[in-house]
């Protein structure tokens, strides 16, 4: 099922590998590999059983398998051996014990010769009885599986055993795409991220004042929450703009609007993002979250962040990803994402769209994760719609306790601290 998988691990391609294939032709495999990498030193051995071969008599030896492997390894100097779809061998020959012995001999020889062997086997219900001995003969077993949840496929990987090494025991999600296999960065249980001593302006003097004068700490996680139409996207776009003006690099994930639409819309409030997109300071990525599973999302986001190396990342709105799965799974993903960003020293701005029924309470329940929390809300007053802003919390900041009115004008957010005095 997952036969190809690890075949082209970087290590293997560096020192050369011998690849035994039991089900796909070497040409096809090489074709897959060419799509991933140019440099591969892989010697293929085609051991697909001939379906037309007739078997006569009870006695069969599998020594050719061994002889061919030894021959190929000697010739290529490979340090890695990959046996793909080992289970096919059990199907091709009736006498399981012959197959077991033949494979055990290969395993033993690899250990003695210092060859790292990777074998893949398709899993079936009677997988243990089918290839039983392999479980005991190998030093490390990794299980890959795929599950469907709510119509979305997710792949996961689990280390079953790893002799002589401590290993993670959980099942971790992974994706396969044009770059091969990607795993989610595992959440470190230790929090050792360094705390930068610089500030990031929120792009609004009054709001910076409310946050203690200089804005938020760089490398911190900032949440902007509010119901629809309260100006979340505008505020985070303004943060992005001012960060760009300060010479920082920004990666903006817009889950609701296309980059073009987004730039046009915030331009109505006086924000000029286009020039920063041109200069490369600002990158806007728009993706419809519904098309991917939660895990796939976080992997793609992490990878984009790693490739882009921004100073500031904006998720607008983070709650869009939350539509994908259950609340706990979502929270886990956000925790991972935030930790990962923090460890890279990236400032995270995320907006949360609050449903009207939520009555201004966050439904994501990730308050403890965020360092600063700015809340926006709508109040209907005297036949007028009034927008309000306040700082819910900001770690390490002398924050204002004011609830200030603000308006969205052609010059952006105008916060009036003097009202309601």
């Amino acid at each position, binding site marked *: 099922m997952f036969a190809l998988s690890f075949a082209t691990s970087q290590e293997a391609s560096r020192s050369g590998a011998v690849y035994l294939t039991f089900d796909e032709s070497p040409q096809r495999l090489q074709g897959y590999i060419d799509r991933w990498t140019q440099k591969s030193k892989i010697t293929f051995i085609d051991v697909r059983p*001939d379906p037309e071969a007739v078997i006569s008599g009870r*006695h*069969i*030896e599998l020594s*050719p398998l061994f002889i061919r492997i*030894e021959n190929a390894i000697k010739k290529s100097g490979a340090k890695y051996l990959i046996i793909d779809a080992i289970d096919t061998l059990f199907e091709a020959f009736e006498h399981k014990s012959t197959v077991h012995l033949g494979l055990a001999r290969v395993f033993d020889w690899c250990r003695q010769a210092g060859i790292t062997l990777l074998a893949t086997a398709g899993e079936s219900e009677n997988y243990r009885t089918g290839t039983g001995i392999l479980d005991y003969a190998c030093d490390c077993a990794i299980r890959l599986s795929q599950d469907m949840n709510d119509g979305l496929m997710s792949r996961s990987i689990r280390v079953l055993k790893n002799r002589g090494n401590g290993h993670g025991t959980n099942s971790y999600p992974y994706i396969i795409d044009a770059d091969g296999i990607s795993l989610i960065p595992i959440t470190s249980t230790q929090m050792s991220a360094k705390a930068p001593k610089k500030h990031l302006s929120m792009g609004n003097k009054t709001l910076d004042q409310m946050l203690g004068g200089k804005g938020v700490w760089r490398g911190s996680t900032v949440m902007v929450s509010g119901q629809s139409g309260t100006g979340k996207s505008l505020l985070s776009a303004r943060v992005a703009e001012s960060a760009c003006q300060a010479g920082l690099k920004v990666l903006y994930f817009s889950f609701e609007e296309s980059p073009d639409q987004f730039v046009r819309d915030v331009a109505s409030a006086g924000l000029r993002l286009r020039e920063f997109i041109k200069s490369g300071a600002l990158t806007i990525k728009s993706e419809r979250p519904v098309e991917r599973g939660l895990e796939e999302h976080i992997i793609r986001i992490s990878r984009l962040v790693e490739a882009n190396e921004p100073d500031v990342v904006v998720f607008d709105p983070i709650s869009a990803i939350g539509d994908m799965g259950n609340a706990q799974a979502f929270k886990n993903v956000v925790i991972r994402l935030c930790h990962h960003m923090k460890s890279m020293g990236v400032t995270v701005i995320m907006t949360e769209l609050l449903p009207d029924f939520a009555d201004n309470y966050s439904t994501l329940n990730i308050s403890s994760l965020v360092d600063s929390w700015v809340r926006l809300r709508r109040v209907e007053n005297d036949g007028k719609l009034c927008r309000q802003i306040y700082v819910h919390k900001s770690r390490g900041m002398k924050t204002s306790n004011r609830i200030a009115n603000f308006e969205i004008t052609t010059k952006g957010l105008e916060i009036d601290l003097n009202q309601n005095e």
Partner: protein
Amino acid sequence: MRSVLDQLINRRLKDYLVLEVYFAGRTPTAVQAISNLEKICAEVCEPNAYQIDLINIIENPDAAEENGILATPTVIRRAPTPIRTVIGDLSDKEEVIIGLCLFST
């Protein structure tokens, strides 16, 4: 069934038969297979109308690679075409004759 096989055997091959036996050292199974094959050929082929080439893949591993040998002993009917393959100790005469197609079709 026996009569059918006899009928087939009576239809002798017209072309010169070339068989290759791939084996991994002179194991009891290999010796048995070679001896079985010789007996069968003597029975179903005209004398001097066939040859059996023995290829020890321990001495010649490249031959195993080139011919995609997965298990030993393996017999390949090289000529006349079509190429046919039989694996095992060849103790089942019927399977060998039908598998290698040792008669005219």
